[in-house]
């Protein structure tokens, strides 16, 4: 695709920005999230069937279009936190701290706690290998980190199945995460790259920012599940293919052609504006009179 370059190129650029190999950075602190880039993910979450800007494949789209938000009322789904790749959407003010080996004074691990449901992840810095394929997957996955100058690169696998967007766009348990933690004085930036051979055609790349907040207090978040709606044993919330009445709502609400909401890799790129213009022009105008039928 013109006007674009490879993910490898992006990573190389990020790493070039980093300083000398030994220039590690103190990341410890409490951080308030700056909600700049992800308004759609806030509060009640994204609209149903809005997959714009997501490089999902046809299988992911089908799963999303048969997804039913009633899922969250089922007891066994109620206490699911955000998985590690979605957790920075939050609400995700952070507490970060290091674990130091007293004798060598080397950082053994970085730990990050997210405010939403108080999930805590461990980023191992001591060169240990990732677990075997028979080891468990967890919400936070298994992370190892390496400094490239003053940028901390973190690789994570063994993640539970989760979601790219909270409206049913899935990320499989074969997905992996590559992240870059970058500190600029009072600000912390996280660049996140999700790869999923099952549901994405290209990596999902996102970035978030936080500001140092020395007075921030993280509250506990106990979650208890309850039967909220009595349903048959083993109830699974879903729509049969082609029956979800909510699929067209996003496009109708924003006066967009229906195919726009279906997303896909092309909708990530600036060039898509041209196609969008063409689609908008080809839409029938709301006040347009129906064409006069041809005379018999």
């Amino acid at each position: 695709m013109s006007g674009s370059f490879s993910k490898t190129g992006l990573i190389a650029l990020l790493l070039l920005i980093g300083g000398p190999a030994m220039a590690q950075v103190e990341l410890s602190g409490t951080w308030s999230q700056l909600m700049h880039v992800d308004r759609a993910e806030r509060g009640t979450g994204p609209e149903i069937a809005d997959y714009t800007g997501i490089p999902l494949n046809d299988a992911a789209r089908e799963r999303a279009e048969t997804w039913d938000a009633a899922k969250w009322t089922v007891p066994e789904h109620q206490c699911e936190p955000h998985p590690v790749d979605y957790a920075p959407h939050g609400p995700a003010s952070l507490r970060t701290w290091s674990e130091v080996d007293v004798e060598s004074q080397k950082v053994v691990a970085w730990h990050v706690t997210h405010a939403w449901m108080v999930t805590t992840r461990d980023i191992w810095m001591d060169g240990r290998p990732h677990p075997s394929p028979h080891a468990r997957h967890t919400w936070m996955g298994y992370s190892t980190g390496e400094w490239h100058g003053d940028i901390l690169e973190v690789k994570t696998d063994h993640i539970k199945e989760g979601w790219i967007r909270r409206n049913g766009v899935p990320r499989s348990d074969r997905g992996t995460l590559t992240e870059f933690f970058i500190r600029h004085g009072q600000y912390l930036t996280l660049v996140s790259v999700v790869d999923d051979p099952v549901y994405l055609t290209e990596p999902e790349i996102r970035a978030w920012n936080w500001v140092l907040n020395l007075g921030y207090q993280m509250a506990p978040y106990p979650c208890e599940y309850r039967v909220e709606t009595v349903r048959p044993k083993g109830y699974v919330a879903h729509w049969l293919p082609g029956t979800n009445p909510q699929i067209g709502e996003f496009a109708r609400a924003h006066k967009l052609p229906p195919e726009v909401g279906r997303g896909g890799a092309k909708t990530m790129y600036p060039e898509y504006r041209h196609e969008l213009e063409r689609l908008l022009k080809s839409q029938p105008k709301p006040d347009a009179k129906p064409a006069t039928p041809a005379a018999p």
Partner: protein
Amino acid sequence: MKRPSNPPTVSQAAAAALLLLACAAGRSPAATPAEDHGTGHAAKGAAPAPAAASSKAEIVPVQHGVYLIYAGEGSNVVVQIGEQGVVVVDTATAAVSDKILAALRTLTDKPVRYVLDTSADADHVGGNEMISRAGVTFGGGYTSDEHFSFIFAHENVLNAMSAPTGQKAAAPSTAWPTDTYFQDSIELYFNDEPIQMLYQPNAHTDGDSIVFFRRSDVIATGDVFSTEGYPVIDLEHGGSINGIIAALNRIIDITIPKRNQEDGTLVVPGHGRVCDEYDVVVYRDMVTIIRDRIADMIKKGMSLDAVNAAKPSYDYDGRYGATSGAWTTDKFIEAVYKSLQSPPQEPK
């Protein structure tokens, strides 16, 4: 599943924004001293041993005295170890019995006292003979010098492995279950732990048990649950899609997550990785959704060919499907279709 042939790309605008973010405010961060030194997390996060070389079986600690042993072929083997000896759930194939026993010997020198079979599948009971013979049972009137451990299973496992006099059995008699049950469950108390074998009728086969280690809080599921593919439904031996779903729901009933729908009761599938309740829920949801779609198609009068053409599992095939091997997506769809059209009779 089609994959793009082009390398992954990212827009120039996005990359430029990222670069600006990275460069903004200079590259020298304020040196904030560490404010919260966590303690004790290194041990908690210690990685399980990486996959062993093919010459050795892999050992994955589950929790408490329970381990998963995988020897490169056949089913997962689950062992519970304590002062009284070893309980082994499933024995994989005979070809890897030596590896399994060698792995077990790195964990304990106590004898194998019980073998529990979750089904009669050859890849689950193939090592029965060698692993049982490597064990020692408790007295009980057995005065022979011959060493062996008891083999427990549902009676339909014995029926499947044995044969009437004069006919050829599927397995040698030395591999057959020595103790069977025909009710809902059978109980043991071993290594200071209550252990239940819980019958799951007409699921993967007509002889499935799940094994619940109640103090260790671990369930070994056999082939009613797998993280490696769609569930194998052996129609010829009494399996059914609704039995699979009932078994998965039974597992979800038993498991209790510790926090944030994670940890707590751990689950070892017949094939694949160690799990907890959430993983079983994800699998149950997937199987139920596909069952519901096929049931709806049957209701509309669609033939098996038409159902296959409609690809009712399309959105899950990239994760669980297969186009080659012993259990393909087409075989799974066919088994669901047939078991919905002609469900097995309820066991008496």
